[in-house]
């Protein structure tokens, strides 16, 4: 069986699908951990894009950039999880709807 060659469109479609899943997760989920994970999903969708175009254009800068994104995401995960932990200790909940004190 012949497998159709993987073209940049496939990568882009995958990336877009993954990104939209992340967006939906951020928008719709109540649990902040899930929201956080959805953000990671969106980042990785971007990474896929970067890697795909890097391959496409035979330019390593895109993959290097992806590595940077992963590093930043790791740092962000550390900070984000710290905030979540602090929030949980204060509110005894992880519900995003309860995070509403920064309002008018």
């Amino acid at each position: 069986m012949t497998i159709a060659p993987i073209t940049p469109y496939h990568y882009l479609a995958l990336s877009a699908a993954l990104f939209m899943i992340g967006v939906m997760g951020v928008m719709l989920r109540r649990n902040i951990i899930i929201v956080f994970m959805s953000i990671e999903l969106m980042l990785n969708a971007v990474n896929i894009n970067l890697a795909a175009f890097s391959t496409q254009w035979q330019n390593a800068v895109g993959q290097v950039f992806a590595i940077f994104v992963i590093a930043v995401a790791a740092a962000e995960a550390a900070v984000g999880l710290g905030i979540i932990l602090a929030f949980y200790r204060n509110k005894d909940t992880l519900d995003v709807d309860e995070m509403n004190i920064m309002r008018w």
Partner: protein
Amino acid sequence: MNFIWLIPLVPAVGAVLLGLVGIRWFSRTASAAVACGSMAIALALSIVAFVQLVQLPPDVRVHDVVLGNWIPPIPLATATGIGSFQVPWAVRLDPLSAVMILVVTGVGFLIHVYSTAYMLDEPRGAYARFFCYLNLFCFFMLTLVLGANIPVMFVGWEGVGLCSYLLIGFWYEKQSASDAGKKAFIVNRIGDWGFILGMMMVFYVFGTLDFRAVSQAVQAMPTETAGFGAISIICLLLFIGATGKSAQIPLYVWLPDAMEGPTPVSALIHAATMVTAGVYMMARTSALFIHAPLVMTIVAVIGGVTAFVAATIGLVQNDIKRVLAYSTVSQLGYMFLATGVGAFAAGIFHLTTHAFFKALLFLGGGSVIHAMAGEQNMQRMGGLRRHLPVTYATMLIGTLAIAGIPPFAGFFSKDEILYRAFLGYHVMWFLAVVTALLTAFYMYRLLSLTFLGSYRGPAWATHASPAAVVEAAIHGVAHPVDAHAHGQAQRKEHEVTHGAADVTTAVWHGPHESPRAMTVPLIALAIGAVFAGFIGIPAVLGGGNALERFLEPSVAGPAHSAETSAAGAAAHHESGESSSVEWVLMLVSVGVAAAGILGARHFYLTNPAIPQRLAHAWPRTYALLLNKYYVDEAYDATVVQGTMAASRGLRAFDRAVIDGAVDGSGWLTRIAAWCAHMIDKYIVDGLVNLVGWMASEGSLMLRRLQTGLVQNYALMMLAGVFVFLTLVLLAH
């Protein structure tokens, strides 16, 4: 003679002492001692100065003392370029001022002594105040006569006016007294206006204000026979000043009213000294007047007419002091007449003799008023000769002196004036002779009504019948109760304001002779009234005209006027004829004086019904004279009412136009301010508030977007991205 500046200063020290310390703390005796003592010192100094002056040769009889600089040199424009306006505090002793200081200190001292008794019923403080004013007056009067230049004289001139005002209004609780004081002051201001203008004019024309320098400068100028030049204007202005001070037509109206003051004041200020200041001033500036014959004519006419008019008023007055007041105006008219015909020395001569006999008459009048417990109406007197022998004798001498009976003082001085007036203007001589007749008449009338005939006054209590006193007290018989009061009403006012006076309110025991302190000055003045004339016996009677010779260096005498005045020249060239004319004139004047006295004797003693019949026969004339020609009323209707009307007009103008403009501008400002307020409030503030309101309302709406929910924000971001992408894609 370097001490002459002390002469005015001693009374000044007395006045300051009495004013600052005396009113509060001095006893009556101490006040009297300070006042009389200072005057005695001044008199002694004056006599010494006079003696020293007489010992000098006649042509160097002048002594100046400069005490300091008053006004430092100021460059000021004059007719001949830029002059230096400079006034030193300078006093000058020369024959004229020497005579005057003797008169002022001599008569002044006697009147001070007299006042110590006359004013004894005043409260202690008022007693000291009276002597304070009296001393102050003497200071200013001596400054006036000793001043070597016009401004220093003017200081004295104004000062005596002030003291006159203070002393006329001495009984200031009495409305009429304070009114009279104001009247005197205001009328004098009108005259002073002329004096000040004259003074300015003198500086402008001559560049100096020193009397001697002015006299010398004017010698070089031509006599203004034809026209009305600068010198004539100066003289006219100075004459206006003199009419105010010396109570001549048209400014004489204050002097009769000035009789509201205590009698010694009338004697000192309003008879002997201050009112003669105008005559003195014109004698001082005689060199100017000689050069202005037209003004001299005016002076002579005013003097003669004043003498006549005042004498006619004096005929019918019933108030003893008013008769004497009009007599003073009349005699001052004589002095002006003398001045007007160039007989300055004769004017000063009459001034001197008048000072004696008129002060005597006033003090005698005061003695009568004192004896009658404040009564001044001669119709309620009579027969007082029995009770007041000394007063009567001295008053008789005064009357004979003023009437011009030889050898009393008034005869010589008045006769000199009549003679010189005859040489000048026959009409004026005739007027003066008629006045002499009237003078003799009204003075003997005064004497008759007061001292002779039968007593017409109120009854009095005697020691013998105390019941009568009680009865009188019970029934309130209208007779003076307080033997020493100056009128009942006044006494009551005194008690209201000062508390009860510490005199024993005694029952009036009838007219009584005054105490020694009053009679001795009377006698001294009577001696003066007898002998003062001998200083100026005319050549025709074998005398040497001593006073005229003595005054020659100071005033422009006949020797000078001989060149300028045709009449004077005639007089001295035809001495043989003139001496017979002089004899005739002398006989005429003695004749009219005798006629006046005999007439008054007939009218008021032998046949007292005549005056009443005359009054009934010519009621209009009588009313006219009794009401003093209605001059006061006329002045009131024209000058006073005119001034009031003008004031009212100006007030209306002030309120309508000046205040209206101010009010209008205020109103406009208010309107403008209101507009600005509205603009500020609704436009400027409105804009500011609108911005604030919009920000606040906008934020109220927009803040609802800030839900605090992260997912909302994410949704909005997404929507934004979506919209943005849509726009970008559509654009392509």
